[in-house]
Each structure stands twice: as C-alpha cells, then as structure tokens.
C-alpha cells in the first residue's frame, strides 16, 4: 500500500516536473548555460544545493574577467550572472542532486533525482564545479572552524593582528595570502616546490608585501591546537628538517577535486574524477553535457567556465530540437 502510494506520488512529480534542459550547479558555467538556454526559450531548470555563485562567489577580487577593467568582487559578479539568467526566465531551485539517470531514449528520457524528488528532462548540463582539496594531515579536520580555513574572504577578518600560515603555491594561495595581510600581523606562505606556480603579477604582489614570508620546499605535517589552532609542524622536503611554527590560523589552498562523485559511472571521467567531453561539451552519455570546473581541461577560470556554459547550452538545445524533430538542418 505504502509503496504503491509513493510510486503514484513520484510518477505525478515527474509529470509536473518536466523540463527541456536541467542544469546541475549554479556557478559561472551553470548560470551562463542557464542564460543561453532560457534565452533560446528552452524550459530550463537550474538545481543548486546552496545559493548560486560557486567558487567564484568566495573570491574577493577578480581582475581577469573581461569587461571589468577595475576588477570586480566575485560574489557581485556571480549575482550579476544570476540576475541576467533569471531575466530570461531561468528557474532556479535550491536542491542538491543525488543522481542522473538515462531512463529511455524518449523526449523526457533523463531523470534527475534530488533530495526532494525526481525531475525529468530531455537534456542535462552538468556544471557541478569543484571543491577545495584537504591537506589530510593530523589536526586538520579537528581544527576546522577553529583556525583551519579554506576561504580567506570569509574568515580572514577573524585573524586581525594574528600570525597565519597559507598553504599552497598556485593562484588561489598567493592571491589569498595577499588578501589576508589586510588583517593578519604576518603571513607565512608554505609551498612544497622551490618556486610558486601562481601567475607572475600575483607573485610580484606577494613578494613586495612586507607581511608575507615564504617557506618553500616545505610541507605541513600536522596542525596542533585545542580550542584554537596554536601551531603547525612543517618539514623541509629536501633535508627532512622539522620546524614548529606558532600560528593561530591555517588557510589551505592546494587545489581542487571535482564534485562528480554523485554521477558514479553515469558518464566517463578521468582518474581524478573530471568529466570527459568532446569539444562540444558532449559527455559519454548522449544528451548529457558537462562544462566548467567539473570538466577535464587545462584552464579553470570564470571566463572559460562561461564559454563552456554557453557551448553546453547550445549543444543541449540542439539535442532537444533533434528529439522534438524541429532541428534546423
């Protein structure tokens, strides 16, 4: 009785929740895909587990997105993307996606399951993005929110006049190290290689900042503290020499992992979990497209995410029209 009832319920839900295109993720890639798809009069739903913005929203200042010569705050840029997409009718729901299935070759052959129910779509665009990578050292999990942080724009103001360590050598690490010096007394940038990977202009900013000290060829072995972080232990990768550093905060920016676990084996991924697509964003599963940071590629920036979002939406639209029999040939 119960199972029949729930079956009827979910069947009804599917009927009411039919879309041409469903987009999974509301960062720059997903919002741009949403803008293009909605503007092409596709009935489009964007599912985002939080508010929109993605990692873009936690970036203090973006100065390499064209059209903003003075630079722009990441959250503000994300809000503009959202506003523009909504203007063309994009529907956005705050729901986390659990799975994507191909149920048939029919026009509503894709089932997108969320925490709250099931939606049907003709095509799906995956723009699920990536999350920060953990250091995986003792103390990191225990002291998260007690001095261990992955978001400088969120947490740097809590470290006024404190000593802070930043881990990583890429763009995020170097840019955020500079940002944290607005508040902290000192910033020690710890990187395992003998030189930074960050782009030259960022390196220059960091090197000219009197509050930043560099500790290269070093890795963090552990983080110590009770109610708050008190110190970290580093190890020199060449000599093996260990050193304790008294800091009250540790900011970790050592790269990302794609948010693609929920897909399991639905689409082909590389060994790191990034989704493989062709040049038109088509994944290994017909009618499912991928764009942005979750996709295997060389450069992960807002501008590339947007470009791919537009391409994925266009390819998805063509797929929908093919299924409808209205493709322009």
């Amino acid at each position: 009785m119960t199972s029949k009832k729930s079956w009827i319920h979910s069947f009804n839900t599917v009927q009411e929740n039919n879309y041409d295109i469903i987009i999974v993720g509301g960062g720059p890639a997903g919002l741009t895909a949403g803008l293009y798809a909605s503007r092409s009069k596709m009935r489009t739903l964007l599912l985002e587990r939080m508010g929109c913005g993605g990692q873009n929203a936690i970036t203090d200042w973006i100065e390499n997105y064209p059209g903003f010569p003075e630079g722009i705050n990441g959250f503000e840029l994300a809000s503009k993307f959202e506003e523009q997409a909504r203007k063309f009718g994009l529907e956005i729901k705050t729901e986390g996606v659990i799975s994507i299935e191909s149920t048939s070759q029919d026009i509503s052959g894709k089932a997108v399951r969320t925490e709250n129910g099931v939606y049907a779509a003709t095509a799906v665009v995956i723009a699920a993005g990536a999350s920060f990578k953990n250091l995986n050292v003792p103390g990191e999990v225990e002291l998260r929110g007690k001095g261990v942080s992955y978001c400088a724009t969120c947490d740097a103001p809590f470290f006024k006049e404190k000593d802070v360590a930043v881990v990583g050598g890429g763009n995020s690490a170097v840019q955020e190290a500079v940002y944290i010096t607005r508040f902290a007394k000192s910033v020690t940038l710890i990187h395992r290689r003998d030189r930074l990977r960050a782009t030259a202009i960022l390196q220059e900013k960091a090197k000219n900042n009197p509050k930043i000290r560099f500790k290269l060829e070093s890795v963090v072995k552990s983080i110590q503290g009770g109610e708050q972080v008190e110190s970290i232990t580093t190890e020199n990768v060449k000599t093996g020499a260990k050193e304790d550093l008294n800091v009250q905060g540790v900011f970790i920016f050592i790269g990302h992992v794609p948010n693609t676990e929920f897909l399991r084996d639905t689409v082909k991924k590389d060994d790191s979990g990034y989704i493989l697509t062709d040049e038109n964003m088509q994944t290994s599963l017909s009618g499912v497209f991928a764009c942005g940071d979750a996709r295997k590629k060389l450069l992960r920036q807002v501008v590339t995410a947007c470009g791919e979002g537009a391409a994925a939406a266009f390819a998805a639209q063509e797929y929908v029209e093919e299924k409808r029999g209205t493709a322009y040939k």
Partner: protein
Amino acid sequence: MSEVVINGSNFDSEVLGSTVPVLVDFWAPWCGPCKMIAPVVEDLSKEYAGKIKVGKINTDENMELSSKFQVTSIPTLIVFKDKKPVQKVVGFKSKNDLKKILDSLL
C-alpha cells in the same frame, strides 16, 4: 519575520530565554558562502516555524558574541537548546543534513 536578528543586547532574551531550540546563523556581509547558505537557512525557518527559532548574527557587528562562541570561520551555524550551545556546524551542510540535526534535537 521568520528570522530574528540577534545582537549583544537581545542575545540573552532571544536565544538563552527561548522556549524552543534556536538555530543561530553567524554570517557577515563580505562572506560569499554565507549568502549562499542563506536561502537554506531561510527555508528551515519556514519549515520549522513554531518548533525552532532561527536567528542571524552579523559577526562584523558582534565580534564579542563571535569570539565568545569561538566562531573563526563563517558560515557557522550553532544550535542552542536549554540555554547552551549543543551543536556547531561549520561550512556547508546540505538541507537534509541540517534537518537531521534539527530533528534529533526536537
């Protein structure tokens, strides 16, 4: 008025004096992820209306409350029950995970 703005002067009455558990959202205007979880917190305030009170503390304006409850990373959600903090959630948790936490405290 489903979410209550909490500050130093009404913390005792609104949070400690509450007859129902209080979910307090520590946030700041410059914090992107705080804005990103705001819709989830707002949904919870509606879904649990009458059973749970939802409060917002701007950490910028209430540094003393933030340091009292050792908030050094936002967004942080703290659930207060019977005059004391009983659960602290740092960073993003899905709505369903948060509902599980709230249900376990009701």
